[in-house]
Structures are given as structure tokens and as C-alpha cells.
């Protein structure tokens, strides 16, 4: 197999495999990032900064990988607001994690309570401090306006598939921050898991 170096940027070495009928070879420091008529390899000698397309020569974009929480869960300490008769309570586990690739941020939060609430229809959470600020769409961004949608569940049971849940990230009521809200049909909530993918500047 012929391996040809096609780029050597700061801390990143990219190679293309010129043979299409030879299985890829990887050593402890190499990672396959794309397979096509050619096979493109990236040797991880530092933080990835650039990517190439399947022709092996054109840079698609320049992206920066940000660890975010470095794959670890963090303890959420923002403000949680429930709409309902009573909020869930007791032995609250509240965790989140996130990472960023270029201008795209992936965020997930999980809440678990010991005691279910009653007749709740909505939960709102402030975006954790330290998270990248969402990029507001042109024309959007005033108080209470929606920005990005998400997915997840608010459920009364720890098992099974959660009920239909609508998730959105928007601007808070004072236009001073961002909140993530989820709406469900009235239930006795005990667990919450919400995901948002959004753009940042």
C-alpha cells in the first residue's frame, strides 16, 4: 500500500491511501476518518484543526475541536423552573455534558428525582454558565423568542420510552440569557433528559 502525505499542518499529519484494494493499516496513533475510493488518514499528533474531503486534497473547512466537558459529566447548578402543581423533589441528580466542533455545540442534560412532581406540563432550565453563547438567528433574539429546537423526554417512569416532548432553546424573558424548555402533556415528572444542538459565534 502506498501512503502519501498530503498535508502537514501544525500538529496534524494527514495521509491518503493510494491503493483502494488494500485494507487500511492503523497504528496506535492513527485514526481512520473517511473511506472512499481513497482512504484518508489522520495521524493524531495534536489537536485536530483541519479536515480533507474524499479527494484527499481539498480542505472542507477549518474547525476547532473544543473539549467542552471533555466527555465528563458536570453538575448542573442553573435555575430549574417547573410549571405544575408540585415540582419533583428529593435526591436530585442533575448532570450535563457538552462538546463543541467548530461552531456547533452539542449539549445534553439529565435530571433525576426521588419523588415525582404532580400535574407538570413544562420545565425550563437556564443554560449553564460557561457554555458557549448561542448564535441568534437574524431577526430573532428578543426576549422569549425561540432559537433552536431539540429533543428528549420528561417522564414519570425511569424505564420505558418517554412521552412526546417538545424541546426548544430560546432567549429568557429579560433578554439577558438563554433557557431550554420542554413541554409535555400533564404528568408526574421524575426524570428529564434534554438535548440541544446549536450554533455559536
Amino acid at each position, binding site marked *: 500500500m502506498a501512503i502519501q502525505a498530503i498535508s502537514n499542518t501544525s500538529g496534524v499529519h494527514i495521509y491518503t491511501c493510494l491503493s483502494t484494494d488494500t485494507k487500511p493499516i492503523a497504528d496506535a496513533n492513527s485514526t481512520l476518518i473517511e473511506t472512499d475510493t481513497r482512504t484518508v488518514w489522520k495521524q493524531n499528533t495534536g489537536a485536530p484543526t483541519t479536515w480533507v474531503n474524499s479527494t484527499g486534497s481539498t480542505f472542507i473547512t477549518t474547525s476547532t475541536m473544543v473539549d467542552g466537558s471533555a466527555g465528563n459529566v458536570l453538575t448542573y447548578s442553573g435555575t430549574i*423552573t417547573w410549571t*405544575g402543581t408540585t*415540582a419533583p423533589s428529593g435526591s436530585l441528580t442533575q448532570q450535563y455534558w457538552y462538546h463543541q466542533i467548530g461552531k456547533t455545540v452539542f449539549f445534553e442534560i439529565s435530571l433525576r*428525582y426521588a419523588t415525582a412532581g*404532580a*400535574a407538570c406540563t413544562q420545565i425550563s432550565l437556564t443554560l449553564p454558565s460557561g457554555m458557549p453563547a448561542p448564535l441568534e438567528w437574524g431577526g430573532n433574539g428578543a426576549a422569549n423568542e425561540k432559537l433552536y429546537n431539540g429533543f428528549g423526554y420528561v417522564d414519570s417512569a425511569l424505564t420505558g420510552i418517554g412521552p412526546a416532548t417538545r424541546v426548544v432553546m430560546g432567549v429568557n424573558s429579560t433578554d439577558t440569557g438563554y433557557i431550554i424548555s420542554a413541554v409535555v402533556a400533564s404528568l408526574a415528572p421524575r426524570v428529564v433528559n434534554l438535548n440541544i444542538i446549536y450554533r455559536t459565534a
Partner: protein
Amino acid sequence: MRHIHQKDTKGIDYTYIITDMQDLENHPAIINYPELFDIQLGEPPPNAQALDFIMPETKE
């Protein structure tokens, strides 16, 4: 400032009701669910849960 507290909550799940009412004794949560809510003096603790209270359709 006084606030309405959900009785079974404390610590990180301490929950208070969002309201503009001054006479908290007349709040629907206190009137209809005194077993679930009480009135506390002072501000809720930092990062407390908030509850936008809504009455259920029928009292259980």
C-alpha cells in the same frame, strides 16, 4: 421577602412558587394545599427550583 415553599423540598431541590402576590396567605396553593406548601421568611436559597403553580383540574 417571604415566599411559598414546597414542603417536601430542601437542599438542592428546594422549591418555591413564583408569584407577584403580596398576601401569600391567599395564594391558591396555600389555600387549597396547605399540606404541600407553607410560607417561609426570607429569600429562597440560590439556585432553588422555581414552580409556576397551576391548579389541577380536580383536587385530589
